């Protein structure tokens, strides 16, 4: 599909361009400015989308509850930092661990479910966590939310001066996420997931342990999502259950980034996040007060339009366009050759 885009010289140029593009924002934007304020969020949603894609895209197990892992990650590192002073960097690993364990817990009731049922089960799981975190006020402060204690601008406690530090952290975490997604997609697990995504039964027949494959995909996906939760907590310095465990705020948005960009592709989430997050921020700035709802109206309208036009996302559309072009070129080249033979 990407044959032309993957030809050697093109590949190097493409990677160089991408690297330049990603390293550019901290160089051209002001450290405390608005643009560098949203850039890390773009990377974060690209990363969350990339993590979601491992189970939602490759395996087609549509999760609408990834906020569960995200919120659990955010709370794990923040509570550790608050009560024991353990650096959020360590907390981030703990966050990944907790999210990974949670994914094992949720696997028990949901892995037998297919399609709509799986999506519904994951929603319920995230809601259960949200209610619990709201209820146990003694530890979590409930609906009031938690402030990440401010210690000072120090790299050791994951608190940077301005936004550049956060941007670079997000970029590193994004690279890790995409690397994992790439390895999964190209490796044995990726083939197993693709097999089961169209039919569990057929995959079982050819010897795929579908439960095991889904479990691994789910663990990888949720560990990464949990780590991003820590990033979010450190970046915004404030978390509350209704936001980090929220259906609309995270569960839906994470999946939306992927659907917009390209389901089951490596780079789709980045494309989706590059469009969706700036749009979101822009509409939030332009439409305030009574018009605040306009932003979601645009959002929803755009999503409807996109799904009707390209239910498989923008990258799929792009690859189709490229493919059609290539076919045309081949056809033209072969007619030329025939003409010269005569």
């Amino acid at each position, binding site marked *: 599909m990407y044959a032309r885009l993957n030809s050697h010289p093109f590949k190097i140029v493409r990677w160089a361009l991408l690297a330049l593009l990603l390293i550019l924002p901290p160089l051209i934007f002001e450290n405390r400015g608005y643009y560098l304020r949203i850039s890390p969020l773009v990377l974060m949603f690209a990363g969350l989308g990339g993590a979601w894609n491992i189970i939602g895209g490759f395996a*087609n197990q*549509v999760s609408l509850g990834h906020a569960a892992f995200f919120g659990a990650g955010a709370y794990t590192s923040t509570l550790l930092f608050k009560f024991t002073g353990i650096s959020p960097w360590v907390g981030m690993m703990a966050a990944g661990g907790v999210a990974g364990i949670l994914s094992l817990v949720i696997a028990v*009731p949901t892995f037998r479910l297919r399609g*709509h049922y799986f999506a519904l089960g994951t929603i*319920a799981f995230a809601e259960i966590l949200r*209610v619990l975190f709201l209820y146990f006020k003694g530890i979590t402060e409930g609906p009031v939310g938690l402030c990440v204690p401010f210690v000072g601008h120090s790299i050791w406690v994951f608190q940077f001066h301005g936004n550049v530090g956060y941007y670079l952290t997000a970029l590193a975490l994004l690279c890790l996420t995409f690397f994992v997604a790439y390895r999964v997609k190209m490796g044995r697990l990726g083939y197993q997931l693709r097999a089961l995504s169209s039919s569990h039964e057929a995959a079982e027949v050819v010897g795929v342990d579908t439960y095991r494959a889904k479990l691994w995909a789910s663990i990888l996906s949720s560990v990464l999502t949990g780590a991003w939760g820590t990033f979010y907590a450190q970046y915004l310095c404030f978390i509350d259950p209704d936001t980090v465990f929220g259906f609309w705020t995270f569960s839906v948005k994470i999946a939306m980034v992927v659907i917009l960009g390209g389901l089951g592709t490596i780079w789709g989430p980045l494309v989706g996040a590059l469009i969706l997050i700036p749009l979101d921020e822009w509409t939030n700035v332009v439409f305030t007060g009574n018009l605040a709802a306009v932003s979601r109206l645009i959002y929803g309208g755009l*999503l409807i339009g996109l*799904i009707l036009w390209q*239910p*498989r996302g923008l990258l799929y559309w792009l690859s189709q366009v490229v493919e059609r072009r290539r076919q045309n070129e081949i056809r033209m080249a072969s007619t030329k050759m025939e003409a010269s033979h005569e």
Partner: protein
Amino acid sequence: MTNLLQAIFNGMLTGGVYAVVSVGLSLVFGIVDVVNFAQPEFLMMGMFVAYFMVLMSGLDPILLSPLVFLVVFVFGAIVQKVLIERVLNAPLVAQIFLTVAVAMVMTSAAQLLFGADFRSSPTFYTTIAVHVGPFQFSLPQILAFVVSGSMAAILWAFMEWTDVGRAIRATAQNRTAAVLVGVNPYRMYVLAFAIGTGLAGAAGAVILPYSYVFPTIGHDWGLIMFTVVVLGGLGSVPGALVAGLVIGVIQSLTSVYLPTQLQNLVVFIVFLLTLAYRPAGLLGR
């Protein structure tokens, strides 16, 4: 003991409404094979339509509920025809997110049109309580229960005894066979979706005398609806009716014995457990 029985009776009253709100969702899934994540927003729409009809006509919202049903029915038919119909063969994600996007658009449109205020439409009987022995019931809830029950009965009779109802059921059972005997499945999908959403809208009118209307009220109802539908078995209409009552009672009982913040926790756990161990639902095969 009196408290316990009172809680059970109250739960059944609210459960009757849950049943009717959810039965439409189940109907749509059973026939169109799409989970309509925007179903709670159709309830919200029904409440607003009823609210403004009451303002204009001064009539009682329950009397107006057939009219509200019609309005939401037409809107639902349009949504199915213009939007849902195009993704019937698309990947699952596209179907899920199309209805999620519809929910988003409906909520934000309501916010733009009506603001985020809480509105209410009290009637003369809103605060009346009926005493039966040691128990007391709120009159609007009894009315809502009775009207919901009759709506469910009408739906059942329609599906069971009319040709159109039979055609709808035939499409759900075997689409190819239905086409062979001359049923246009797409028309049946539109009809089923419109009936399903219309019922939620009518239920909105029925609960108006005792509940507030605001654009995000759908969020409060969403998980209840899905729990009821899953407990009853996705696609099973009688299942949704029984499950509505069960969930109403469970919710009412937990609010007696547990702090209110945890009221929904038990509902969600029931939901997950049903999914895991009885995915076909209470009355499932």
